[in-house]
């Protein structure tokens, strides 16, 4: 998988080799997804990992490829979880339509937030998305359908169109794996499309893109909407997996966690967020015995990453192999 920063034209030969490497990595990835539950890893842990990996990849579309740090992505993640949970449990729409409802809600929210925040750059953008997300948090705290502090509990996993029963954990895992693969593929294709190239152009030099006649604001809002929608897909799926949607999903700490995942793995790389999500989720899982020291460990990792390790793990590997 090629990284983004070089705009050097590839010769036919290297292009073919890159493409081959891409297929190879995709094949390995699909094989890994397929056999993972048989390697003695707890399936619930794997599903959690996939949901957060998709969340981080969607978030990275903004941070890594447009250069905009959104500190409010928890709003999309959590709200989609609530909507999916409510749609499946109360409206009995079925699992697939529930997840779709969550995804669409997050996309619409992304469109509105994007339209408000997109005129600002850098830290202003971060602060505005954070404040808007906090508004969503208080809405979720007070709205009747979210059940305040309790959240929505006991969401049925249901079936896929009445054909596939998701109550079986292994079946559920493959359902989640397919959703992850689909979301990841969409993001991968987006990044490597002309649209994705335009986004990278905005990241590198926005005035140049404006003078070249690109509708920069529109492109940014589109990217933000898409990032929000896929974040929603991840959140809705998470609600089905864990059969609950709670305030933790919309809390701004969740936004911080996804930033950390992307930073550790490597922003602006396609696989970085997946690796980062794996590390953060594993740390939380295995360090859960030390109680709230986990927060301190997370904070320390943040500080270390920013001070010494800004490219992240995947970014660092790519930088070394390219040399």
């Amino acid at each position, binding site marked *: 998988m090629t990284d983004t920063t070089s705009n050097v034209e590839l010769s036919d030969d290297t292009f073919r080799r890159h493409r081959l490497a891409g297929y190879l990595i995709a094949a390995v990835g699909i094989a890994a997804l397929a056999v993972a539950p048989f390697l003695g890893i707890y399936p619930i842990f794997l599903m959690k990992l996939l949901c957060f990996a998709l969340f981080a990849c969607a978030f990275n579309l903004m941070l890594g490829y447009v250069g905009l740090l959104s500190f409010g992505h928890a709003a999309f993640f959590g709200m989609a979880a609530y909507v999916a949970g409510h749609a499946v449990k109360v409206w009995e729409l079925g699992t697939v339509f529930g997840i779709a409802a969550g995804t669409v809600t997050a996309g619409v929210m992304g469109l509105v937030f994007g339209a*408000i925040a997109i005129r600002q750059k850098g830290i202003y953008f971060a602060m505005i998305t954070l404040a808007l997300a906090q508004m969503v948090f208080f809405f979720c705290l007070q709205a009747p359908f979210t059940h305040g502090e309790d959240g929505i509990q006991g969401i049925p996993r249901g079936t896929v169109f009445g054909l596939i029963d998701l109550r079986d954990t292994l079946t559920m895992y493959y359902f989640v794996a397919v959703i992850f693969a689909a979301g990841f593929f969409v993001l991968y294709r987006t990044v490597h499309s002309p649209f994705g190239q335009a986004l990278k152009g905005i990241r590198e030099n926005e005035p140049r893109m404006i003078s070249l006649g690109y509708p920069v604001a529109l492109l940014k809002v589109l990217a933000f909407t898409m990032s929000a929608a896929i974040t929603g897909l991840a959140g809705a799926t998470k609600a089905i997996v864990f059969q609950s949607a709670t305030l933790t999903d919309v809390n701004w700490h969740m936004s911080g966690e996804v930033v950390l995942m992307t930073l550790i793995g490597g922003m602006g790389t396609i696989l970085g967020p997946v690796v980062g999500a794996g590390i953060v989720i594993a740390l939380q899982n295995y360090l859960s015995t030390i109680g709230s020291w986990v927060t301190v460990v997370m904070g320390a990792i943040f*500080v270390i990453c920013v001070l010494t390790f800004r490219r992240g793990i995947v970014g660092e590997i790519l930088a070394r192999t390219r040399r």
Partner: protein
Amino acid sequence: MQEILGVPAPLLFGQLLIGLINGSFYALLSLGLAVIFGVLNVINFAHGALYMMGAFVAWLLLHHLGIGYWPSLLVAPLIVGVFGIVIERTMLSRLYDLDHLYGLLLTFGLALIIEGTFINFYGVSGQPYAPPEILTGGHNLGFMFLPTYRAWVIVASLLVCVGTWLLVERTRLGAYLRAAVENRELVRAFGINVPLMMTLTYGFAVALAAFAGVLAAPVYTVSPIMGQHLIIVVFAIVVIGGLGSILGSILTGLGIGIVEGLTKTFYPEASSTVVFVIMAIVLILRPNGLFGRPRE
């Protein structure tokens, strides 16, 4: 009982007073953020945690060393300010040449470390901190009851805000600071130790946050999470006011406090979101904030 717009007068004035007090804390914190941003170009995500630290240091001084409120009002900001200076020297100063985002991310990590550590030792339930003898009690103003301590909070924070504003706008030191914001290299060429100035600025603004924390200790309970919600409201205030302006952050801070108080009286459900709604409206109408100048 006298009523104003269908609300009993004491209730209305009571909420306005609470709003004014919250506004005082908002003003002190957003002022510190504005100063740090102006000189260091860093959004200090740890500001809320440092405010909490100020309150906790005052509480620790009282419980372990028997040092009371008045000395704490000076000592706690000093201790936290020195802590801030260490942070600036060892970490923040390495990031000035990079994208602003890294400063935000670093201070976010620091906030997690500081808050997490205090939560581990003291839990999230909170500790009471009594106001000093002389500031207990209150006055009956006829239309409402005014607790003395709360009046003192408003007066003290206003004095500090105005003092800081005068320092930055009316003194030679302030002129250097403002010049350094415009062109760091030029000010350095005049023989001024810019890195030292930046370090001291961060220390001073952090001390301001800690001062607000000590002031807040007798009003709220002293808890490791007391800064968490506050910092996001303060971010919204900074966006509403326009980041460049010190006066803007003071006025917006007080104003938002009052608006919150009024909302609590007339439509309580919206009181915690009204700040963010105002922020969205202001951004649509004036993208640079109420007092901000256009940015590059």
